[in-house]
């Protein structure tokens, strides 16, 4: 039991904006009305936030583990965690090791993370890694938009069957939702091609187009009643002029729920690398006119990182552009994955446009319950650099200072200099916690209300937002103090959220022969056993009647 007194509370889920309020936590790690006894934390003069929720990150599984293998030179120079009695050793950096990932997220006040890309075939691996990420709660999204068994059903117009196939895969992966990456494009990449036009049939199919995959998969997610809508990485990522594809994609989604991942990478104008410019205003206008739609920024920070995505064809292009290391892993029947180390440089005009575009989207989309803090870790920058982004959002002077260091030519290509909005603490809390929790359908996260999980973070008020957000005074996870004054106190094991959507009972008989034809493991061995998930928490679905 614990009470937190005197702090200024920012709880956007309940409309509380800096009021001084006492919070009480019971022995089950939940907020309650009243308790007797227990520890009291005097938070007078401090700032109280719900624990951060990362809606889109890559922290576990075959892809990030491939990236770890490819970047020993970064591990050697980065922050190291030394073994202690209650803490495992590990390394931070561009692709942190599992234990370090938990410590770094919690150390910054984040208590829930969503691993946004899991091939079902290697989901067992992903869950084993997640079991080694301490403190934070976790969820995963299964990659579906290039699954050939599913695409065959969509091409044949078998909607009901397709819906059951998706439900079967989600439960097989023990996932929480559906991720769509470059719909059709990764399947085409298996032949060395891509899918850039939403209306052209994809390689290997006669009539099926990316547009149709997008529309149907979004509808399937809604009909299955998944707590989180389809999580979409649009076609044509990273390419100059791709705003046209993105807006076209959004029009395909009308009538459905959707979350658009890392929208920064999908908001460029121009018609080549020489003429690339930000198209954030067009994209932000669309979001402002469609309040049900959510996105995360996928903001870019200057410096070294490693890019990892299921978008294989894009990574091949990036390898050709940079001449750096290239990892590629195509996953049978399901998806692909590419890895290329990358350095974002302020002197590079394209990188500077990317940096500005991410911030512009966060600033131009008015409702922080729609646009969330993310760097698409590790693609745009590492998650442990989020406090830098918060400072850029909260302080226009600091933004101008950073912009002054960019090449003069950048000014004609971006709109950031015209924006004077500064995020308030309330808006930051919405963008880093309450908003993503709501989009994920995690009703007990990002919320300091009665009955919710007691995940919260307490900061010493500080004029320098980057300093304040990188070193919380306390982080409390499930009612337990895990970080105190920048040091790790406890390392409890978090929960893993998943769903079991309804599906046709005959789906096993339908899947088995297809599976045996396409895959190279036995059908019985494919689904991840529920016993293998540490602290599984199966969330309800609300399927359409």
């Amino acid at each position, binding site marked *: 039991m614990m009470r937190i007194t005197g702090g200024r509370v920012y709880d956007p889920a309940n409309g509380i904006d800096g009021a001084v309020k006492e919070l009480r936590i019971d022995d089950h790690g939940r907020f309650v009305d009243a308790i007797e006894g227990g520890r009291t934390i005097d938070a007078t003069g401090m700032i109280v936030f719900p624990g951060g929720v990362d809606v889109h990150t890559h922290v576990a599984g075959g892809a990030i583990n491939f990236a770890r293998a490819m970047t020993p030179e970064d591990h050697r*120079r980065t922050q190291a965690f030394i073994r202690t009695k209650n803490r495992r050793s*590990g*390394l931070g950096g561009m692709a942190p090791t599992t234990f370090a990932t938990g410590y770094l997220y919690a150390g910054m006040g984040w208590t829930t993370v969503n691993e946004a890309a899991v091939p079902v075939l290697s989901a067992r691996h992903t869950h*084993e890694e997640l079991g080694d990420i301490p403190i934070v709660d976790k969820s995963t999204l299964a990659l579906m938009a290039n699954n050939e068994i599913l695409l065959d059903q969509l091409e044949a117009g078998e909607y009901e069957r397709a819906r059951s196939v998706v439900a079967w895969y989600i439960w097989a992966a023990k996932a929480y939702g559906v991720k769509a990456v470059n719909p059709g494009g990764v399947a085409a990449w298996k*032949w060395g091609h891509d899918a850039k036009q939403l209306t052209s049939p994809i390689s290997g199919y006669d009539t099926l187009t990316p547009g149709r995959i997008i529309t149907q998969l979004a509808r399937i997610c809604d009909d299955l009643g998944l707590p989180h809508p389809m999580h979409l990485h649009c076609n044509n990522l990273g390419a100059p002029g791709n705003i046209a594809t993105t807006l076209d994609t959004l029009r395909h989604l009308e009538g459905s729920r959707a979350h658009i991942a890392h929208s920064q990478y999908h908001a460029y104008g121009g018609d080549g690398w020489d003429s690339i410019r930000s198209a954030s205003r067009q994209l932000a206008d669309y979001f402002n006119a469609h309040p049900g739609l959510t996105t995360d920024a996928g903001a870019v920070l200057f410096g070294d990182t490693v890019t990892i995505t299921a978008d294989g064809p894009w990574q091949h292009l990036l390898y050709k552009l940079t001449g750096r290391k290239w990892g*590629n892993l*195509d996953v049978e029947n399901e998806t692909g994955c590419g890895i290329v180390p990358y350095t974002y440089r302020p002197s590079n005009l394209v990188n500077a446009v990317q940096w500005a575009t991410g911030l512009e989207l966060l600033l131009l989309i008015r409702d922080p319950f729609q646009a969330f803090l993310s760097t698409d870790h590790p693609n745009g920058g590492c998650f442990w650099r989020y406090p830098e982004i918060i400072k850029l959002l909260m302080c226009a002077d600091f933004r101008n200072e950073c912009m002054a260091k960019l090449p003069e030519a950048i000014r004609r290509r971006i709109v950031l200099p015209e924006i004077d909005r500064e995020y308030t603490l309330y808006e930051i809390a919405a963008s880093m916690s309450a908003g993503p929790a709501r989009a994920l359908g995690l009703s007990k996260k990002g919320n300091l209300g009665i009955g919710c999980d007691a995940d919260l973070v307490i900061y010493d008020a500080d004029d320098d937002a980057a300093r304040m957000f990188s070193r919380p005074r306390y982080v409390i996870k499930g009612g337990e103090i895990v970080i105190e004054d920048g040091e790790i106190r406890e390392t409890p094991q978090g929960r893993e959220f998943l769903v079991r959507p309804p599906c046709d009972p005959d789906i096993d008989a339908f899947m088995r022969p297809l599976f045996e034809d396409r895959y*190279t493991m036995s059908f019985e061995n494919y689904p991840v056993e529920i016993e293998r998930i540490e602290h599984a928490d199966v969330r309800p679905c609300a399927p359409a009647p």
Partner: protein
Amino acid sequence: MGGKVTCTLGEVKQKADFIVYWGGNPAECHPRHFTKYTIMRKSKFLPNGRKDRTMVLVDIRETKSAKAADVFLQVRPGKDFELLTILRALIKDQPVDNDRIPETGLTRDVLDDLIRRMKAAKFGCMFFGMGLSMTCGKHMNSAALLTLVAELNAFTKFVAMPMRGHGNVTGADVIMRWQTGYPFGITFNRGYPRYNPGEFSTVDVLVRGDCDAAFIIGADPGGTMPQPAIDHLKRIPTIVLDPHITFTSRLARVHITTAPQGIAAPGTAYRMDELPLPLKPALKSPYPTDEDVVRRINAALDAKPFWLPEDGRPRMLTAQV
């Protein structure tokens, strides 16, 4: 150049119409490879199976696998790197001095034909074995092949995969990577993981005599390591967990018999393409599993005073020393 352009074996089974085995003898060493994953398989995209697929074997001698191949290229021993480098030049139409080709043991015509076939493939896959990775040039050979495959993607779809052997080596790699960032050759002697193959690899640590105890699971270094390493294992307290009596268990101070993985003990094994496969035991064993034993050792260690010096508060290094 670094990295690896690869796929899972199901992609090869479904799509690869052009398959190269380089420095390996699958007919004798991976006897199920042809029938489960490569040349003998029929699929949606390659309905005629063997007829729709081309196989090339590159090796220093004509092994049994050569009989299965459409094209056999007998490379001169120790010239794999040169051959791969010439191929890298040829695919990009860079000039190659004809005088440099005979030293590889092959002719210009043969290489031109190979380039033509590789570029005409819809989906090519190169499997490489220890005949490439463990002979003169070693990791440089693997890097040259991986680079060739990466560069071929400018023309058509191409992937590469090492032909790995020995149980669950891949699984050990994968887990070490997620827990420490590195696959092997790791030391924790400063309290956090550091990596340097050649310095911290098991064989080097043993040969130098740097360790004062050894704990061995699922391996038999006593059968494969050089004598100085074995001598050191005999000198120090060596503890072995193994279902069988092995060279190593014979020289060990302690041998704990454990249940065999996959037969009487559950778990996960990672296949050569890094897919995790669940192990479901068919039999019961009177012996504990490796996992049981390690957990009990850990519990016993936890009951002892903590072994690292504690100066009050946990430390976090911002820069490595």
